[in-house]
């Protein structure tokens, strides 16, 4: 019987079984940021411990950085204090830190891959649930709490339960205008937001195989929205081509050895899975959420669902979601007015996201009255976007072009919704109040749908607004 990548990577990192039945798992790469690390460093100090393996922890600052005015001190003294705390902690423990003046700062899940820190076969932990993003490289990557950040700093290990593995094959082809974001929103709607609890998701199939690394990252990123703490793709030629030559990727003879080892990590053809699901690419439409969790979604050209169509026990939750979203059952989604368009985040703030949108946005204008933000995921993305003229396309179209950070995804910085504004957002969570206003409303969508909606001033189908037909939109 063959093994899955999950099994192989798990076994290579198991230090031992713990008395409580969990496994002590070695962590190859630990990423930290300003929000979930300060308490961990404090706990370390309290116990008189040091960072055990400083060369395996890398830091950046992303959640709290303002994207409009980066001069220090920041307007918000709490944000400044968090940045100062991180600076002090990395200096004290000798950790690499991609600070604002490094030219390499960005959202932790954007810079890890970009710098080649993220590699196949690694175990990767970070105090952030979207660490699942790095699974796109065939890594076993997961979010941890602050007490576990302490554990990794102190021991380079965590106590973990082994997960089951569900293989999700997306086969066939995607229709024009359908992107990786639509694929993962469709998967989450199909399997449910609790469907992945206890599982790692292995994404495979023809559609996934054809995807770029950045598209795969979008999918792996939102695994956790489906309840799966881990999501991954098997490494292949696309993975290796992406990594080659990156700053922290292996070089020279190491590179050749690494590629051979990485190839062998892929799940064996005869591996057994705890569950298998197949999804047809043709069945996936550009998808938007209408509710208050990422599983409450529908095709963009569809309607707000009628709670009466659901089983009785599900109705109260759906009615509550519609009340919060101020949507009517049966209402066409395309009638919903948009106040804000947000393009960015660890889900969709990469160069290919911006490139794709810019190609279609050129010559169009954001509708009057819509506040539109484009926020590159990293300083490297921002630089490339300037060089390629993409940033200028966004500015010309009426988007505010901002500096890299988490921005409006979770509003720990000045970018936030006001009152009950409705945002079409390329981010990953549409929870109540997520974007900073307790009554703010979030509609999750692909970057293309965000741009189409910004232009139309309402939730809009990118296939209509951008006249997409024939070719795969993401080609």
């Amino acid at each position, binding site marked *: 019987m063959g093994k899955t990548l999950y099994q192989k990577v798990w076994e290579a*990192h198991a230090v031992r079984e*713990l*008395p*409580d*039945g*969990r496994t002590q798992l*070695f962590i190859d790469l630990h990423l930290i940021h300003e*929000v*979930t690390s*300060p*308490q961990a460093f404090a706990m370390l100090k309290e*116990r008189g411990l040091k960072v*055990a*393996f400083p060369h*395996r922890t*890398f830091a950046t600052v992303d*959640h709290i950085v303002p994207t409009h005015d980066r001069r220090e001190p920041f307007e*918000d003294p*709490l944000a400044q*204090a*968090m940045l100062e705390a991180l600076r002090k902690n990395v200096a004290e423990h000798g950790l690499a830190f991609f600070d604002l003046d490094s030219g390499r700062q960005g959202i932790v899940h954007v810079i890890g891959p970009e*710098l*080649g820190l993220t*590699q196949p076969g*690694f175990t990767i932990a970070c*105090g952030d*649930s979207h*660490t699942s993003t790095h699974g796109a490289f065939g890594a076993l990557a997961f*979010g941890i*709490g*602050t007490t*576990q950040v302490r*554990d990794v700093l*102190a*021991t380079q*290990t965590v*106590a973990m*339960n082994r997960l089951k593995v569900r293989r999700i094959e997306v086969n066939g082809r995607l229709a024009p205008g359908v992107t990786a974001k639509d694929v993962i929103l469709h998967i989450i709607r199909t399997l449910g*937001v*609790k469907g992945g*609890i206890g599982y790692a998701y292995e994404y495979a199939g023809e559609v996934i195989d054809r995807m770029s690394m950045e598209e795969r990252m979008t999918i792996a990123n939102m695994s*956790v929205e489906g*309840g799966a703490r881990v999501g991954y793709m098997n490494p292949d030629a696309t993975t290796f081509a992406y990594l080659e030559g990156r700053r*922290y990727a292996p070089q*020279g003879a*190491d*590179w050749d*050895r690494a590629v051979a*080892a990485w190839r062998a990590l892929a799940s064996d053809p005869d591996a057994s899975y705890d569950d298998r699901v197949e999804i047809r690419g043709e069945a996936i439409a550009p998808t938007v959420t209408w509710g208050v*969790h990422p599983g409450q979604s529908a095709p963009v050209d569809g309607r707000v669902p009628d709670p009466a169509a659901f089983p009785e026990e599900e109705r109260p*939750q759906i009615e*509550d979601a519609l009340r919060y979203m101020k949507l009517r059952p049966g209402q066409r989604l395309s009638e919903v007015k948009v106040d804000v368009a947000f393009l960015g985040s660890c889900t969709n703030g990469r160069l290919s996201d911006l490139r794709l949108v810019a190609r279609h946005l050129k010559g169009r204008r954001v509708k009057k009255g819509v506040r539109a933000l484009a926020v590159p995921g990293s300083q490297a993305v921002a630089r490339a976007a300037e060089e390629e003229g993409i940033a200028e396309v966004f500015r010309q179209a009426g988007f505010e072009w901002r500096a890299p950070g988490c921005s409006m995804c*979770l509003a*720990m910085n000045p970018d936030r919704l006001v009152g009950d504004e409705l945002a079409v957002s390329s981010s990953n*969570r549409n*929870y*109540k*109040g997520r974007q*900073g206003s307790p*009554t703010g409303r979030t509609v999750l969508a692909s970057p293309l749908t965000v741009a189409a909606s910004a232009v139309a001033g309402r939730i809009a189908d990118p296939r209509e607004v951008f006249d997409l037909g024939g070719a795969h939109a993401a080609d």
Partner: protein
Amino acid sequence: MPPIKEIRGRGLPLPGDDIDTDRIVPARFLKTVTFDGLGDALFYDERYDEEGRPKDHPLNDPRYRGAEILIVNAGFGTGSSREHAPQAIRRAGFRAIVGESFAEIFFGNATQIGLVCVRAAPEDVAHLMATVMERPETELVLDLAAGELRYAGRTAPVFLPEPVREAFLEGRYDPLEVLLNAMDRVRELDRRRAAPGKPGLY
């Protein structure tokens, strides 16, 4: 770590599935370098309106003041890995949560800080919630040794993974001491395993 064998206290019902970590602690309260004071941020946007006036919420209901066991439905704690969520619950005075199911990262975070999360059958949760809503003064006894919850003359089985239950009973739920016991093997793995930017290990 003190062993946790039994938790006695009153309950506070928080009905609804998929209550996420952004609701438990809105992100703006994460702008802090400590967990101190987080108890006040618990469910802030559901407890207070935009002017800071208390809304109708069980946490504002004087009948539930001093409750120590939270009662929830399915998928509690879904969303982010922020440990601020269980920390806020703990610091607001709760020592246990009884619910239909919990999100994975939340469950792990809660366990490590000694906040006990146990599952119960949906019909048992419904009965418990109804009882506590009707009679908030009801004393609940969560007996981890017996794996049951007793209240108002009723006994309901509760579930949690056996090793986690034992860890609570024996006071081993924070694993750091145990993790530190294997540093020789960890150092050996560190020498062998590839690390970013470190040549010769591939």
